[in-house]
């Protein structure tokens, strides 16, 4: 990019025709070549890096805007998981008495709600992100992957705030620090990448087919029931357990609980989640890149 240098062009009143060569040192190769896309489109990492500030500002905008003109402001990041926890603790912990593998149900369910709230919000926000930013897509260029990614990255702040509340619960429930908590950062990374993979794909589908907008909230709800958040995997009959285990979120949610309660990790499930996540991420980014060129025409 820096190959193009303009030598103090700004200070000149106006270029004489023969001074133009001195003003520009045109690069030998074009900075940008615009062509119809070929069937294979690589992930243009150089371009993503060049536009990193656009990414940063879109994340910043999403965070700034989210709690503008609200009374409770950023407290919403806590209200949502906290009230879910109270409701679940009352209905499933007290009334139905669902097992929580020996841990106190309220905090046990909160640990499941944490990654789930992040994941479901990330999915909902990124799924609608391309449509919500159609004014940008039809007027300026930047790698479109930035849009759904920024929507997800902005959700990490809410996740961090809700997590801070969890740390407040820990002494209250008599839980200690343990080495297994070191697994938390990789788990957060994993759930972020899973959200990125699915969110990138849904956003692209949504740009083309508005059906996604209607299907998404309800699919997210179904996904919650397919994930051991309000119930432990251990109460699922063994013959059905594989269905739940196919869900890449299962290993992640169980992983969060193992990390915080110091339980043994199910490494097999985690490896499975990581493999699926990686595969989905690569595949959906590819799909997105294939569809990307037509966004401005169809959105």
């Amino acid at each position, binding site marked *: 990019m820096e190959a193009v240098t303009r030598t103090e062009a700004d200070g000149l009143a106006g270029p004489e025709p023969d001074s133009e060569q001195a003003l*520009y040192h045109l690069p030998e190769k074009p900075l940008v070549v615009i062509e119809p896309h070929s069937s294979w489109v690589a992930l243009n990492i150089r371009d993503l890096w060049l536009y990193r500030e656009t990414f940063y500002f879109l994340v910043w905008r999403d965070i700034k805007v989210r709690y503008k003109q609200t009374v409770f402001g950023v407290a919403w990041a806590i209200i949502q998981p906290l009230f879910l926890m109270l409701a679940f603790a009352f209905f499933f912990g007290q009334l139905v008495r669902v097992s929580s593998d020996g841990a106190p149900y309220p905090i046990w369910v909160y640990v499941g709600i944490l990654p789930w709230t992040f994941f479901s919000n990330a999915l909902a926000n990124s799924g609608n992100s391309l449509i919500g930013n159609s004014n940008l897509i039809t007027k300026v260029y930047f790698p479109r992957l930035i849009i759904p990614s920024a929507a997800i990255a902005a959700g990490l702040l809410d996740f961090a705030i809700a997590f801070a509340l969890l740390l407040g619960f820990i002494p209250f429930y008599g839980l200690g620090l343990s080495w297994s908590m070191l697994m938390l950062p990789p788990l957060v990374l994993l759930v972020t990448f899973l959200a990125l993979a699915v969110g990138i794909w849904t956003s692209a589908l949504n740009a083309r087919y508005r059906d996604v907008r209607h299907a998404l909230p309800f699919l997210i709800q179904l996904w919650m029931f397919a994930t051991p958040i309000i119930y432990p995997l251990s109460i699922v009959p063994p013959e059905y357990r594989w269905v739940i285990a196919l869900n890449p979120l299962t290993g992640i949610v169980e992983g969060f609980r193992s990390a915080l309660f110091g339980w043994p990790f199910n490494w097999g499930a985690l490896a499975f989640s990581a493999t699926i996540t990686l595969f989905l991420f690569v595949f959906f980014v590819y799909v997105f890149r294939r569809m990307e060129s037509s966004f401005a025409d169809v959105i």
Partner: protein
Amino acid sequence: MRPIIKVENLSKRYHIGTSAAHRGALRYTTLRESLSRMASAPFKRLSRGGRAREETIWALRDLTFDIMPSEVVGIIGANGSGKSTLLKILSRITEPTTGRVELYGRVASLLEVGTGFHPDLTGKENIYLNGAVLGMKRREIARKFDEIVAFAEIDKFLDTSVKYYSSGMYVRLAFAVAAHLDPDILIVDEVLAVGDASFQKKCLGKMDDVTKSGRTVLFVSHAMEMIAQLCERTILMKDGRINKAGPSREVIDYYIGLYNPG
């Protein structure tokens, strides 16, 4: 001297489709339509050959031209002649169907005033957001910040959400940010007719500075006087092709002559 923009055999085809015409403004498709079209397409093609012809439109047809560094070029033509499509391809917003463009410099395009403005953010926040969206670096915006505010004449309202701005204040701020872009190639669609008479004069003055600073500028407008004043060369487009290109005065006179015969 080598060109800074090289356009070769550029064409763009849009699918308009008979069904799209029925839906009017709703241009997006639903999954069901896509599936049913996929299922029925082979039969339709069997029953009436050449159906594809009525479903597409060529917005650009085999365009070839060069732009030299520091040139200020106007692009004129009637509505639907392909001007905006050309700018959109050069700005990388949409892809060509065939052909190739080579750009030997950084491009900033200004197809609309206030792209990316968020109504809930303050004037100050929007300067940063809009600048970033248009391709400025954070340091660059910070450096030009005072200049932008002074140009827009909104210093008293910097910390007010732009949704409370009058429309005049809004476009002044938007134009001020855009006017402080510093690319090698600037692509401008009809966006200068903003604000009141005194601000328009200021805008024109600013554009004049920009064009004299050695930057390459592509400039679409229907305001012929502005084109004649700012651009040395003008391209006249018609039906997706270059109808005439040459010194601005000549091309503009020819264009006006087309509609006032005799």
